[in-house]
């Protein structure tokens, strides 16, 4: 660690990983509710569990992005963080706000929570991923602004690198697009139109800049390849991201009452969205092959390569599968969507977070890399989680194909609930894979506590 203030990242990462565990526990609960319908009913209805699962996901990823920024930016800017105190304060505000919100979901019915938080004054609740009470959303904006300010000041008063500027652009975009969460007209078509400005322009827009910047940073560190080369790749990857991904939003404007031209625009542009993900894979493998040093943190290199591959599979391949309008006509809002959502979020954003944590945590704990034993265990957890996520995706895809056929494609369609019963076996298999994922996560946690002889050497 070159700068003392980078250390604030550590508590962000610890919070992120704890919430990750919560997310997965609720995922496993829901997986059970899919097959044993009355599991935990009416104490934890499915919609509540889902909200906890997805909101914890988003919040822990935000914690991880913030931690990553606090670690990365001082090092890139070659100066201490503008205000470590502000970073610490925002950590506690965000953690308390997040915890209270999740407790609110679990201790009250959702309508009680809405009343308690005066949703009627400015109704923003009850939309997928944006279920947080309006007051929590305001809190998120405050934390995001303070965070972007802190990071921005550090970057702008220090050495400016392509990596840190791309990261900053992504973070500003994240904050700006979140503001659309406050627009909630009664008109459902308009509501949906702008809702995607948060959701799509996040994951297929500005978040990819954050992903690219973190990946570039870690690759510079672990491969020692010339910064010039890596920065050129980064520019061209994010160029392709935004060139395809902005108009690519149109793949969500097929069936919600928007004009027909989106069928063409959305299909064509989003069909090119896999390109930047593919380039990311080429980029990561190329840099590792051209490495000028062998970094002792093998686990971090594995996570970095894994991110590139899994993001391409989940976002690129599984995204492409259902992004053309004539196909999406049948698959829209089915288990195919869930399959893609899982592998894309895991492959891109979960894995890049774990890459950064894997690279930086040992350094923050005073060593270049973990002991061989700890790394071996960490790599086991990599494979357990990644392979089980592949299986979750495959089982949901199988379920989705059958669902589409039985309920939408055949000449004699059956009802939603009848179709669900017929594909139950795949939900059982998904649940088994989910439990393996949970085991993988526990192994991952254990790897932090494994001791052993630590490799010698200087950090890059």
């Amino acid at each position, binding site marked *: 660690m070159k700068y003392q203030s980078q250390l604030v990242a550590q508590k962000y990462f610890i919070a992120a990983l704890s919430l990750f565990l919560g997310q997965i526990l609720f995922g496993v609960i829901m997986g059970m509710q899919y097959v044993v319908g009355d599991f935990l009913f009416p104490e934890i209805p499915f919609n509540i569990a889902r909200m906890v699962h997805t909101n914890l996901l988003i919040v822990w990823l935000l914690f991880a992005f913030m931690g990553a920024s606090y670690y990365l930016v001082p090092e890139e800017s070659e100066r201490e963080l503008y205000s470590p105190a502000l970073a610490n304060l925002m950590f506690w505000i965000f953690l308390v706000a997040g915890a209270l919100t999740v407790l609110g979901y679990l201790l009250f019915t959702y309508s009680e929570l809405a009343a308690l938080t005066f949703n009627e004054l400015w109704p923003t609740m*009850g939309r997928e991923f944006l279920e947080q009470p309006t007051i929590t959303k305001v809190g998120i904006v405050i934390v995001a602004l303070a965070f972007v300010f802190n990071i921005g000041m550090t970057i702008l008063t220090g050495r400016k690198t392509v990596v840190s500027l791309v990261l900053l652009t992504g973070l500003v975009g994240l904050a700006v697009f979140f503001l659309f969460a406050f627009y909630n007209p009664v008109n459902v078509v308009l509501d949906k139109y702008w809702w995607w400005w948060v959701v799509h322009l996040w994951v297929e827009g500005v978040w990819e800049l954050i992903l690219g910047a973190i990946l570039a940073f870690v690759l510079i560190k672990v491969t020692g390849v010339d910064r010039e080369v890596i920065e*050129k790749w980064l520019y061209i990857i994010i160029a392709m991201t935004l060139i395809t991904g902005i108009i690519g939003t149109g793949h969500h404007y097929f*069936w919600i009452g*928007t004009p027909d031209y*989106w069928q063409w625009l959305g299909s064509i542009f989003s069909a090119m969205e896999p390109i930047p993900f593919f380039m990311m894979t080429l980029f990561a493998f190329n840099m590792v092959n051209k490495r000028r040093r062998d970094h002792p943190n093998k686990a971090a290199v594995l996570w970095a390569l894994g991110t590139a591959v899994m993001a391409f599979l989940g976002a690129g391949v599984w995204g492409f599968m259902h992004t053309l309008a004539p196909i999406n006509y049948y698959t829209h*809002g089915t288990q195919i969507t869930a399959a893609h959502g899982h592998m894309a979020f895991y492959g891109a954003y979960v894995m890049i977070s774990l890459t950064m944590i894997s690279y930086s945590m040992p350094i923050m704990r005073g060593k270049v890399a973990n002991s061989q034993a700890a790394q071996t265990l960490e790599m086991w957890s990599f494979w357990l989680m990644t392979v089980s996520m592949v299986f979750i995706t495959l089982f949901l895809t199988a379920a989705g194909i059958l669902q589409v056929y039985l309920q*939408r494609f055949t000449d004699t369609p059956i009802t939603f609930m009848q179709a669900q019963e017929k594909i139950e076996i795949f939900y059982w298999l998904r649940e088994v894979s989910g439990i393996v994922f949970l085991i993988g996560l526990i192994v991952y946690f254990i790897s932090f506590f494994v001791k052993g002889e630590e490799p010698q050497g200087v950090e890059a």
Partner: protein
Amino acid sequence: MKETFTKSMARNIYYGGSMFFLLVFIGLTYDTHQEIPKRDNHEAINEVVALGKRVWEENNCIGCHTLLGEGAYFAPELGNVYTRFGESTEALKGFIKSRPVEGIPGRRSMPQFNLSEEELEGIAEFLKYVDGIETARDWPPNIQG
């Protein structure tokens, strides 16, 4: 990448390309907002529907159901439920009202939300309004949603 392709070229493609497509997207958004009123069934929006949307949101219906294909995949699509229920708001209200508090043993069941008569009327009218939105190719593909 070959040296003939320099970092500054890559940077220019990034700035130029993303700015250009962002502007195109804003233009398309403007145009879309001119077109939407022709098919969004806004004539049907009134106080009752507005209350209905609030009820929809404040009970997190989207946490189990899809609405025009967006939401959760645990329970049926509701964008066309008004049609599926024989175009009867009474049938919709009756269904929502009669959900058992303790659920149905072994099966997925919808919670009992204890809605008032006014809220029931609102949610039913809201679902009727959404069913009236003219989606492309009349999505969903069939009555089952």
